[in-house]
């Protein structure tokens, strides 16, 4: 229908030019929506098909016999598939949560320091922090692997947490610094005059105001750690330690691929991230635009 509308306004009538742009924009958005949403929908649909239905050609657009069997299998701690899936899930939760918690603990004071203090080498350090982001993560794979082996961290979740922190912290610090820059310094000064120490002023006045920034930073670290594949694939080899991205891949490609099972696992893997993002997205958007304009 939108194509028809496009055609009808395409006639050379200069007064309609605005409409043509508007429709062009709509079509572009529709295509983008299609591009991003369809794989998700297909994932969901496949996950409730039977194994046979999933392989049919032409494909069943809507499963003839929708079933939750795949989900039951994955969430059942009694059978081996369920055991593995739940363990991977738990491993991912542990690694991501640790990464997030440690990331926030380091990023908050670091960002505050960059925002408030003038110390020698401040600018150099601040941009050095970004240096890592200029290289693709893969470049660091071998050096970091050697480093982890030297530290005795290979095949531990610690190796992943440390690596994810290295990659996640720079942007976290930048995001948070923008937040602290926008909190008037007079608030802290007022608190210090009102009887607070510098630390109390930070904890009681500044921290609560930067909660949106902290939440955004936390989402950012969590999603990064939750989805990371290459490092988890390289650093971990023991089955019981795998995180979800590696676990799903390895687990399902061993024998004939169980597509509904794979899709159900993928869907469940994306649930925490989507929920987290939906609940906290307003903070995230605010963090990304914070500092863009002066209030």
């Amino acid at each position: 229908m939108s194509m028809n509308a496009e055609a009808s306004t395409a006639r050379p009538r200069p007064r309609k030019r605005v409409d043509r742009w508007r429709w062009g924009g709509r079509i572009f958005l529709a295509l983008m929506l299609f591009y991003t949403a369809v794989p998700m929908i297909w994932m969901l649909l496949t996950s409730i098909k039977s194994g046979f239905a999933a392989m049919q050609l032409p494909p069943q657009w809507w499963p003839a016999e929708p079933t939750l069997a795949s989900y039951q299998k994955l969430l059942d701690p009694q059978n081996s598939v369920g055991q593995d899936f739940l363990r991977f899930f738990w491993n991912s939760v542990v690694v991501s949560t640790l990464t997030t918690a440690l990331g926030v603990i380091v990023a908050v004071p670091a960002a505050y320091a960059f925002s408030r203090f003038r110390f020698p080498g401040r600018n150099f350090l601040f941009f050095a922090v970004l240096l890592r982001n200029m290289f693709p993560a893969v470049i660091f794979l071998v050096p970091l692997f050697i480093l982890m082996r030297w530290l005795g961290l290979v095949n531990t979740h610690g190796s992943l947490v440390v690596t994810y922190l290295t990659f996640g912290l720079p942007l976290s610090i930048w995001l948070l610094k923008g937040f602290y820059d926008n909190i008037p310094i007079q608030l802290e000064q007022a608190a210090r005059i009102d009887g607070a120490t510098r630390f109390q002023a930070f904890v009681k006045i500044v921290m609560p105001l930067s909660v949106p920034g902290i939440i955004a930073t936390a989402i950012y670290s969590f999603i990064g750690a939750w989805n990371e594949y290459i490092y988890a694939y390289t650093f971990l080899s023991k089955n019981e330690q795998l995180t979800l991205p590696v676990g799903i891949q390895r687990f399902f490609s061993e024998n004939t691929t169980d597509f509904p099972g794979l899709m159900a696992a993928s869907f469940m893997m994306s649930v925490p991230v989507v929920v987290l993002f939906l609940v906290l997205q307003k903070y995230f958007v605010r963090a990304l635009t914070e500092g863009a304009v002066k209030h």
Partner: protein
Amino acid sequence: MARVVLTDLVKSYGSFNAVNHVSLTVEDGEFVALVGPSGCGKTTTLNLVAGLLPITSGDIVIGDQVVNDLDPKDRDIAMVFQNYALYPQKSVYKNLAFPLQMRKLPRDEIDRKVQEAARVLDMTHLLERKPRELSGGQQQRVALGRALVRDPAVFLMDEPLSNLDAKLRVQMRSELKRFHHDLQATIIYVTHDQLEAVTMADKMAVMNGGNLQQYDSPAQVFAHPANMFVASFVGSPAMSLIPLEAASANGTAVLTSAEGWRLPLSPINARKVQNAKTRKIVLGARHSTIKLHKSAVADAVPAKAYTVEPTGDVTFVQAFLSGAIVNISVPPSVDVAPDEQIWLEFDQERMHLFDGETEMAIRAD
């Protein structure tokens, strides 16, 4: 309440002295205004007293205590900021209670003091609101309340009125003055607006370029400015400063202009000019001490009207005289047109003479 003594106070950034050897004493219960243009070091001085910046050298005494190295919280001061600095996440009640909580007062005493401050400032009905739900004037009041609730030794105020609109500013100005009168509080008040300083303060400290230019009562500063900067900064419209040359005629000193006229001087002014170390003399005169004549009069000098601004009860005339702009106030009945030839007569009793080299006022002795 307490007195505050600054002795040879210096704050430097590298080789630049933002506050340059400032010494002054604020007596117990005195309202002192630090006044000067932006970047003159007045806010830096206030922050040094507050302890928000470390001092480079010198001493700050509050009460009987040298506070040079004390944290802000241990100086027994309260501060009102230009942007009020109300804690946005806290209600008005909690904003007022915060300084008391930090001092670990018992809960019922906190409540009593907060209610008392709210009553004094007439904002009991606002206690549950958040700062963003208040008007500028109300926010200002809360900021004042937060300072007042603590009963500190010294109040520090950093341009507390400059974010208000003009009408509210005038109203809050009288309220602040009344507040000082009722509490007999020691107040150090920073402003760039000389009118606020003149109207409210017991004493004003005029600063420029990090240096204290003059520290005296507003009346004294107005009547006897120490130098050309103070003369032109205090008073509105500004004092006119006319660069002239010293000469002598009939054995007495006169001032001559490059425009060719000469201005005879009274004996005391003549003595001042003779005492000066330079022949370059700057004549200073406030608008109300200059008489405007429409025809040549003895001892009046010729000038040309530039603009005429009637304000209702008084008309301000700007005129060119010897290359300088001169402000004159005349009754509205006087009819002057731009570019009209006029003659100006200076009040010898109330004219100021400055050394053209050092820019300092010339004394008679």
